[in-house]
């Protein structure tokens, strides 16, 4: 039986800052998961991953992360991706720092 393909986003770390980033549908890198392209087709996912991996001077370690569709775009399905999306839980550092400062 074929595996059921679950929704994905392409994620990586930014080369200079190391921040967690997501590939958007219009080929940009966003720091915000909700702006990531929600990919539901396996062949398309592979193409998008290849596209990301070719950007050696911009990003590091691209991979496909499991997500599910939410009201505001993709949402993580595993706690690891949830931490990557927000930042560590001992300090308001990482992405949550920017949010805390708005």
């Amino acid at each position, binding site marked *: 039986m074929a595996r059921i393909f679950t929704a994905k986003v392409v994620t990586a*770390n930014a*080369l*200079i*800052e*190391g*921040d*967690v980033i997501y590939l958007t549908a219009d080929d940009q890198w966003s720091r915000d998961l909700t702006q990531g392209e929600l990919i539901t087709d396996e062949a398309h996912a592979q193409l998008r991953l290849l596209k990301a991996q070719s950007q*050696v*001077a911009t990003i*590091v*370690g691209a991979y496909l992360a499991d997500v599910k569709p939410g009201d505001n775009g993709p949402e993580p*399905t*595993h*706690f*690891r991706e949830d*931490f*990557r999306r927000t*930042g*560590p*839980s*001992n*300090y308001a*550092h*990482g*992405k949550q720092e920017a949010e805390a400062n708005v």
Partner: protein
Amino acid sequence: MYKYNDFDTAFVTERNAQFRAQVARRIDGSLTEDEFKPLRLMNGLYLQLHAYMLRVAVPYGSLNSAQMTQLALLAEKWDKGYGHFTTRQNIQFNWPKLSDVPDMLDALAEVGMHAIQTSGNTIRNVTSDHFAGAAADEIEDPRPVAELIRQWSTDHPEFQFMGRKFKIAVGAAAEDRAVLKAHDLAVRIVQNPAGETGYQILIGGGLGRTPMIGQVINDFLPRADLLPYIESVVSVWNQIGRRDNKYKARIKITVHEHGIDDIRARVKARFALIRPSFTGADQELLSEIKAHFAAPNFRSGSTAAYGAAYNADPVFRAWADTNLAEHRNEAHAIVTISIKKHGATPGDASADQMRAMADLAAEYGYDELRISHQQNVILPHVHKSDLPALHARLKQHDLATANIGLISDIIACPGMDYCALATARAIPVAQQIATRFDALKLEHDIGHLQIKISGCINACGHHHIAHIGILGLDRAGVENYQITLGGDATWTANIGERAGPGFAYDEIVPAVERIVEAYLDLRSNAEETFLETYRRVGLSPFKSALYPEAQKKVA
């Protein structure tokens, strides 16, 4: 304090310049990540969950105040205002930018520090007793030997691309404060019955997914044979150690598979071959190094001020009772500064705190500091009459927590909050346990108890050798925590026993509480420590306390 000579300085400067060029080529895209990764790891630079992480070596845990002040500068200028002290006497910076790392390394070099061999399959930072040079129970200061090994191993051509990392620790005291038995190779400075000083060598210890306790390969090695002997051990392992599976590529597996006697015989043969190439230059170097570690000129003078404060101030007394250790000079004490304030991240110090500790070392501590594998900072030499003033100053910087060796003095690895390899969080579990027992006001009554937490099977948080060990795992997409009991990190080292099924994130603190309550019920008197009680009664009563439901079902 060891001072770099011109050769060392030139080596580090050249290495930094090389790395600066490599970073530039990575940023302009002429190096791919696959090409760059081994180069950055050779310079202590990791990529973690949210950012890069720079791991800086504090060889054998020794620092002077200028070095500590410089670490504060790095934290402030290129990070988020703090640094994280680790179980391997390193400091990690969690948020540097790739483009800033060359500047950070140059800043470190200004004070004789670097990040070389803090990662990669090489001989890692040589660690030692954090009370070295001060402890009342040591035969001699172990740091000159550690420094000799550091110099020999740094950039040693045979050991730059081994199957796996290799960790060496050196100790010289009656008590083991360097976890010697959990190292790939441990050097213990000992005296034989004839009163000669030499080395006992242990190999094959290690934690990770297959924890093992080191075994003695040589009971008494003459001093002049140390480097050729260690070189023989590492090269035998480099040769016959497994490379087919990275989890089996540690010397503990080689020792386990071949047996210690077989390894001993191979080392002996190798030693016979290479011993003649060591013509004594290493021994000359050792005496030169020793001169750098001469003890400070200890002040004499009355210690009455200490006794007076001890009798008058209960807060000072509580701190003195837990955070001071016996110094070899009677007028002095060893001060452990807890960077484990209840609810704080174990091992984190802010730039302000680092600077404060550096200033206090300069004022009261003959300019010396140490980092412990328990993630605390030590002022090894403080005259007792200065202790009340020191304590008052520590209070101002939130550094006067009186909990060394107690239940809130927890070792915790970064876990899922920072580490790319983690399977669960470790830091918030430590924070909650410390806060909970602080609220219960039981900490001092419980006495000596070590809790150690790792966020994955790599065991960076030493959970296997904790009295209460906690290992965070991923069970079907949720955090789950497995408990081991009865581990020990000292001469009587052993690996803890698994208590049973793991606990969910919100069940782990109550579970620890049940273990501690069981101990308080089971101990024969207030002096019997948790480990002693455990050794007397075994796992079973603790298991009943941990899993009351299962108990009911059986009944």
